[in-house]
């Protein structure tokens, strides 16, 4: 019997859930869950005895929250008191949760939340309630972090899979920061990442990093999509080298590494900062099988012309099935899925609101 694969689709106006029990040939789609909320962040946490969905939802009227479901979206729970809230001493308030990241497998109750304004929160109760990580907020660089086009937010949180003291975050702008002491101290990790919008092309920090993705199999191997620039690190973020050659453009937002092959990474290139369209209006995912030395455009089953939509930073993901599934959603409400590592694609759903995030996982029977 095939396991169920669950795909969570966060949009500008709610969350949709797609499930497939036949090897990802057909899908059942439910939604909207949390209708009329922006769902910037969603996670499928399969570490515990029961898979848990976590959704970062923001109502334009009634503010942000994190809601959880332990029955695959049939019912949702949130605590009475705000699960993520800035301490009074910060004089800040939560605008939205941009990222929900389950911690290492050895700590199944630990979950991180990256927020706007740029801050990190840590949960030790499976993502129901969160504590403020003061070390990042108190970083002396913080006054010099400035909002990118989408807002000043920690949009990427990568807990190290084997060392619970190590976490990487990325923000726009600000760049990459890492801790090796559980969040007490943080250090910029942007060596080699170029900026195109400041006189100093290689500052210590201030980069507009759009996404970082790290291999679970080889956690020192990371990939980074910058605001112009695509990079790889082989030393956990100490240094970055360009891997943009072979891509049609070095701009884009989304990037995700294969769950078990550290040399395989996916990107959805966008033409340029000033022209945020897929190159030539062609809907193509690019994959490297050799850690960024070369790239292949994947297009079988995707629109070949006239695709002027784009893919946001969290709207590209992989599942943990065999073979690996790849998914992306567009700002025009389409979601495409591949059940064979990107070789062939099908349109899973269309006419949704703008897709902000997708996450997929196998739900073991």
């Amino acid at each position: 019997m095939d396991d169920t694969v669950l795909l969570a689709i966060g949009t500008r106006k709610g969350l949709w859930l797609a499930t497939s029990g036949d090897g990802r040939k057909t899908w059942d789609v439910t939604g909207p869950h949390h209708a009329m909320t922006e769902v910037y962040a969603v996670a499928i946490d399969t570490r515990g005895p029961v898979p848990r969905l976590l959704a970062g939802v923001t109502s334009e009227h009634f503010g942000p929250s994190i809601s959880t479901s332990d029955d695959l979206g049939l019912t949702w729970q949130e605590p009475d008191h705000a699960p993520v809230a800035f301490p009074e001493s910060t004089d800040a308030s939560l605008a939205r949760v941009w990222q929900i990241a389950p911690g290492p497998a050895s700590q199944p109750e630990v979950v991180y939340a990256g927020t706007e304004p740029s801050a990190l929160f840590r949960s030790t109760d499976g993502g129901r309630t969160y504590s403020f990580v003061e070390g990042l907020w108190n970083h002396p660089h913080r006054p010099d972090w400035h909002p990118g086009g989408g807002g000043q937010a920690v949009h990427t949180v990568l807990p190290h899979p084997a060392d619970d003291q190590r976490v990487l975050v990325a923000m726009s702008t600000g760049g990459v920061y890492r801790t090796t002491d559980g969040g007490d101290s943080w250090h910029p990790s942007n060596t080699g990442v170029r900026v195109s919008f400041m006189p100093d092309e290689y500052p210590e920090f201030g980069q507009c990093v759009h996404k970082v993705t790290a291999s679970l199999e080889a956690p020192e191997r990371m990939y980074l999509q910058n605001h112009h620039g695509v990079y790889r690190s082989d030393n956990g973020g100490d240094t970055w080298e360009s891997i943009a050659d072979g891509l049609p453009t070095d701009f884009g937002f989304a990037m995700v590494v294969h769950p078990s092959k550290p040399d395989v990474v996916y990107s959805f290139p966008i033409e340029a900062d000033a022209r945020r369209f897929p190159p030539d209006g062609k809907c193509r995912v690019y994959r490297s099988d050799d850690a960024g030395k070369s790239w292949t455009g994947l297009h079988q089953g995707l629109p070949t012309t006239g695709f002027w939509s784009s893919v946001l930073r969290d709207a590209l993901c992989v599942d943990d099935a065999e073979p690996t599934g790849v998914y992306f959603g567009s700002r025009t409400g389409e979601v495409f899925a591949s059940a064979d590592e990107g070789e062939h694609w099908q349109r899973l759903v269309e006419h949704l609101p703008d897709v902000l995030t997708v996450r997929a996982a196998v739900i073991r029977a």
Partner: protein
Amino acid sequence: MRVLVLVPGVLRSVVDGHAKLEVEVADSATLGVTLDVLAAKYPLLDRRLRDERSALRRYVNFYVDGEECRRLAGTDTVLHDGCELQVLPSVAGG
């Protein structure tokens, strides 16, 4: 003194289904104090109405006897016995 709070339909699920709530507050209590009292019983309602700094949510309106509080003194608006506080989501979104 007592203040009558009218709860919009979209928020009634977080106040046990009530459309109206009677709040007992000290004489001459402000809107902010009244919301503090309400928060003690209905914390989930409170975070729909105010952020963690107790600032009113931008797109939620609070009509004090028919006048939106931002035209009065905001959360410092002084209420009176029998005052009607109507909470209404404003026009927003797309």
